[in-house]
């Protein structure tokens, strides 16, 4: 975000005490007044247009205006008053600089790394699914949520981890809350990882099933990555850019070639059922976890990062240049009655569960307490890196929401309702969409599929195909026209699948290391990450765990996304609850109790959302919403030997019963974990607040910093002067 303040900073980088509020200048007041007015006008347009469609530009302006104000004022308040960032204090990167794990990294480069690590398919998928409630609830949550919850969490976790030499979230939970909190955090992290991988893999399966074009293109990414790996290892060590350029060129060729394959006699070989794709993905995940990283994982990561950033920039340009009109209603009746076909449940709490990444994502706390705190140059940079990168991710989510909302709502529901509801023909899908209260003719549905050269678009759930159709619409409007629509569609599918698979690779490996570390307590050799039996066993366990949910999701007659996505959202928000609890605990224990609301308010909100959602998922008597009500309904029918739609036979009835039992039990476990962590922390808060003795500090000792570097993206004149004095260059 280039929202750096144009005015001079209040304190030169070397002044020891944080400043006393902003200096008021007429120029800055005028600029920020203008930003506020423009943002407010955009919000006004969004709020007041009912029944007529508005341009997507208003959403972009409202988002950017709000981000700018939030970054300028709220993030600055948090940095200066709440956290009291202190640039005279050396960061772990400076104190422990060893040229590898710890080293001061340029803030702009670190921003890029951090952003690439936090942003993936999540901000693209969640908003698309949440669009079933209309674009308004999602937009408000994405923007308000990121400002007051998501970006705050990322920044505060980053700060506290940085002050503790880069301790992980799990370690901080154990140190600050106690062993029970620590164990709950560990289980939470592992559980969310498994569900996350399963849901993301399910998105890929739904995007590739029955699509030889997509399957071929994605399959080709494996030999391309292996080629890049060998090239980097054997031929041109370290020439990452050159290798990436070759890789991206091959990738684009693979997308084009997918179109040829679809027309050729090879097509049947790449037309895979969802079940076959699951098996392929599980084998792939296992291989990626046991192979050396240089061979597959690292080159894939380069490819996917370049593609990710490139495509996001392209999407932003496309939205701004083509200024599409929003076709979706602002709010649909599903927001109130909770009977939406994409996922069950009403606006509260399910919008806030469905859109995690982009608004508030607990997973980010793992990144913000991972490598980033070990590389940050100056304390003040937590604002740009923690808060700024999350704002950027939020903007990606807004664009995904736009891409889904510029589609004809009839097409949206025909793509996102479960197959059991829509049937398999354009006629049955058209009728089902009409029954939902929207309209699309069978011809229009067939035409939409033909335009992107897919055999069908019916029930292509998971968000990725919808986003790809939306993006192809936007891109084709700016670059290349209708002729290139099929290319852009498959380009979008490819880019999503590419970085989802990168997440699957990396996540499987991280999960395996966590498991190896835990099992190492029982049997020592497991701890050695290169010990072959341990490596094989733990990889198989992790792959088996997500593979199970993936398999269940693919075979679930009720639709895997419909059943599993809420669970994924709950797991992610559970992790956010743990992270915000750790932050609040630390604010209280480090003498910042009067500002504890900064993380306690989002925590209260997040706990309310997570527990309400869990409560409904466990106790709701509505079988489409409550897992146990669903289980009771289907098992009663099964005993009578009846088959309930959308199940087609008794086997499928059995599948529903098993899946709803597993999902229901998981919901209970997740809710209990949240309650354990929060209640445990509350005792810690009480003790800390009533303690008369000074509390021990878990911070690393303060050492004076010698590095002079700017806090934000663009160096202010005073920062430039200070850098010139110190002899450091940008």
């Amino acid at each position, binding site marked *: 975000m280039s929202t750096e303040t144009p005015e001079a900073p209040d304190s030169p980088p070397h002044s020891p005490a944080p400043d006393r509020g902003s200096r008021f200048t007429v120029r800055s007041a005028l600029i920020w007044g203008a930003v506020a007015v423009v943002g407010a006008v955009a919000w006004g347009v969004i709020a007041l247009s009912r029944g007529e469609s508005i341009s997507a530009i208003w959403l972009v302006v409202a988002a950017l205006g709000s981000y700018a104000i939030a970054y300028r004022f709220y993030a600055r308040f948090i940095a200066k008053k709440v956290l009291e960032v202190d640039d005279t204090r050396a960061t772990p990167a400076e104190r422990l600089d060893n*040229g*590898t*794990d710890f080293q001061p990294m*340029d803030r*702009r*480069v670190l921003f*890029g*790394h951090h952003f*690439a*690590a*936090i*942003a*993936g*398919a*999540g*901000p693209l*998928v969640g908003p698309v699914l949440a669009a079933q409630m209309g674009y308004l609830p999602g937009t408000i949550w994405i923007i308000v949520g990121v400002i007051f919850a998501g970006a705050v969490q990322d920044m505060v976790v980053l700060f506290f981890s940085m002050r503790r030499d880069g301790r992980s979230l799990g370690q901080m939970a154990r140190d600050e809350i106690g062993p029970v909190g620590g164990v709950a955090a560990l289980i939470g992290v592992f559980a969310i*990882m498994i569900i*996350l991988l399963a849901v*993301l893999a399910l998105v890929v399966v739904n995007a590739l099933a029955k699509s030889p074009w997509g399957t071929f293109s994605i399959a080709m990414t494996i030999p391309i990555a292996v080629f890049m790996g060998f090239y*980097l*290892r054997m031929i041109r*060590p*370290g*020439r*990452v*850019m050159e290798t*990436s350029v070759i890789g991206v060129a091959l990738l684009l060729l693979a997308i084009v070639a997918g179109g040829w394959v679809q027309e050729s006699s090879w097509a049947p070989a790449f037309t895979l059922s969802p079940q076959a794709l699951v098996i392929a993905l599980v084998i792939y995940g296992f291989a990626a976890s046991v192979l*050396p*990283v*240089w061979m597959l*994982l*690292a080159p894939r*990561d*380069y490819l996917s990062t370049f593609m990710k950033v490139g495509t996001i920039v392209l999407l932003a340009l496309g939205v701004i240049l083509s200024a599409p009109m929003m076709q979706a209603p602002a709010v649909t009746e599903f927001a109130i009655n909770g009977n939406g076909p994409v996922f069950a449940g009403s606006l509260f709490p399910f919008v806030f569960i469905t859109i*995690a*990444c982009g608004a508030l*994502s607990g*997973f*980010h706390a*793992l*990144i913000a307490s*991972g*490598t980033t705190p070990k590389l940050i140059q100056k304390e003040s940079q937590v604002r740009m890196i923690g808060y700024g990168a999350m704002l950027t991710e939020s903007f990606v989510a807004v664009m995904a929401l736009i891409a889904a909302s510029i589609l004809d709502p009839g097409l949206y529901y025909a793509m996102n309702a479960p197959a059991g509801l829509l049937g398999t023909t354009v006629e049955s899908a058209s009728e089902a969409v009409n029954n939902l209260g929207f309209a699309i003719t069978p011809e229009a549905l067939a035409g939409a599929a033909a335009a992107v050269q897919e055999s069908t678009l019916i029930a292509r759930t998971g968000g990725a195909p919808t986003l790809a159709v939306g993006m192809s619409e936007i891109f084709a409007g700016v670059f290349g026209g209708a002729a290139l629509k099929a290319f852009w569609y498959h380009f979008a599918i490819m880019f999503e699948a590419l*970085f989802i698979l*990168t*997440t699957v690779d*990396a*996540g499987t*490996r*991280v999960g395996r*290391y966590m498991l190896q570390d835990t099992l190492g307590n029982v049997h020592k050799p497991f701890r050695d*990450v290169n010990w072959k039996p341990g490596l094989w066993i733990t990889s198989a366990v992790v792959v088996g765990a997500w593979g199970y949910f993936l398999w269940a999701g693919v075979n679930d007659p009720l639709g895997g996304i419909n059943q599993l996505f809420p669970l994924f959202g709950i797991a*992610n928000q559970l992790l956010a609850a743990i992270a915000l609890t750790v932050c609040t605990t630390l604010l209280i224990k480090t003498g910042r109790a009067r500002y504890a609301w900064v993380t306690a308010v989002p925590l209260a909100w997040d706990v309310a959302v997570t527990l309400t959602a869990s409560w409904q998922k466990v106790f709701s008597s509505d079988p489409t919403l409550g897992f146990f009500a669903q289980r009771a309904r289907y098992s009663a029918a099964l005993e009578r030997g009846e088959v309930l739609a959308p199940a087609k036979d008794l086997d499928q009835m059995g599948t529903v019963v098993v899946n709803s039992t597993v999902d229901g039990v998981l919901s209970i476990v997740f809710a209990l974990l949240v309650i354990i962590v929060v209640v445990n922390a509350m005792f810690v808060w009480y003790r800390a607040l009533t303690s008369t003795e000074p509390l021990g500090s878990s911070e690393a000792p303060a050492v004076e910093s010698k590095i002079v570097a700017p806090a934000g993206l663009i160096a202010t004149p005073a920062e430039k002067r200070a850098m010139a004095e110190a002899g450091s260059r940008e």
Partner: protein
Amino acid sequence: MIAALRRAGSGVLWYLREVSGEADYDRYLARHEREHPGTPPLTRREFEKRRMDRAQEHPQSRCC
């Protein structure tokens, strides 16, 4: 105008080299020169091999 474009171009190149890790070796050489002057540094091939081995031990998770 041309000077500004050239500056922008070299800025982009600098950024890409830094972000992709391609510049890590240059930084290593400078550091090696500073801390162990007179001793031969690792070759690029050896350095990159160690860098990958390190990545092997510390996988970075990617979020959703």
